[in-house]
């Protein structure tokens, strides 16, 4: 193929590529781009709203009044532990913080007021022992029961205690530590570990 023919081919290619897009093409591209643009415009608005919200939240948290240490102690003293559990506490456990003087004062006055209202403190007795206690109190009050006899155990109870048999402990025999008779891996005198 000659160069002239090749030039004709390339001119044919130029002619084939001299196509025009449809009149709607530019409008379609603009529509597509404006859609992209709208999406991007929405971004700063949302970003501004988000920024403002975040700032409000941060300021609110910063300005929120913190709980005072007294309030924290009040909460701690509202859930007292039983005495038995405190006696079982580990020696390394941290000591409970000293209650505030005002709180102690308030508790004391509350107890004093209750004692004034009920001078004879109520005693709780298990239902199974109530009848026996009533009989005991009646016997003590009318003198049929000697209070001194309550301290010594009944004679038959003392007789029931049989002497404990003597415990015989056989002497402890410690076997010889002779390694040759033990049959251990180190029976030949070595440690059994390779150097």
């Amino acid at each position: 193929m000659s160069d002239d023919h090749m030039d004709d081919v390339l001119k044919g290619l130029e002619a084939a590529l001299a196509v025009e897009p449809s009149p709607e093409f530019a409008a379609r591209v603009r529509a597509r781009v404006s859609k992209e643009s709208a999406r991007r415009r929405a971004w700063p608005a949302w970003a501004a709203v988000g920024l403002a919200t975040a700032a409000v939240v941060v300021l609110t948290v910063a300005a929120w009044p913190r709980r005072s240490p007294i309030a924290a102690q009040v909460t701690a003293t509202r859930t007292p532990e039983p005495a038995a559990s405190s006696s079982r506490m580990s020696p390394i456990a941290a000591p409970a913080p000293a209650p505030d003087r005002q709180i102690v004062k308030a508790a004391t006055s509350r107890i004093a007021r209750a004692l004034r209202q009920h001078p004879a403190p109520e005693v709780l007795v298990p239902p199974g022992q109530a009848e026996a206690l009533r009989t005991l109190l009646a016997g003590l009050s009318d003198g049929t029961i000697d209070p001194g006899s309550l301290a010594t155990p009944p004679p038959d109870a003392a007789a029931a205690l049989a002497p404990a048999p003597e415990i015989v402990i056989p002497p402890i025999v410690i076997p010889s530590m002779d390694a040759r008779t033990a049959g251990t891996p180190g029976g030949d005198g070595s440690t059994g570990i390779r150097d």
Partner: protein
Amino acid sequence: MNEIADRLAGVLVTAEDDLAREFEARLADSAKLAFRVAYSVVRQRQDAEDVAQEAFARAYRRFRQLRDRQAFRAWLVRMTWRLALDHRRAAKRRLTREDASVQLRPDVVHGESVAIEQERSARLWAAIDALPDRLRLVIVLGAIEGHSIHDIAALVGAPEGTIKSRLFDAREKLKELLQ
């Protein structure tokens, strides 16, 4: 607080308006180029428009980095070329799947010598398609809007010497293929 947010949003929207105006100028400047580059690959007017449109949408997303006119055109040409190749590959796969007898061919030319023109056109495009990508792009760009070697070098992002060499190779290869 709200006032600051409104002002910030206003500044950003104004910047977006400027960007949109600038992009409109680039669109008017490069729409035909993108369409023709796409057409050189897909050979269907509608498909070429779709590809060019997609390329413009992507260009808009990255327009802040592509404000320079020459950089924009070069980026647009390369993006359109890649998108067109992808589109064509996808179309071929679709055709293979559907086992259709329809082949990718240029829009039908209506005229007196329809058969001759169609045959010439088919041979030319077959030869163009047989070129390697790097040669095909330079010969197509040379045939579009009368781009010079300097213009093609700027659009492809390669030295002028490389473009000259590629154009020469492309011509030689086309000669072989069309003989």
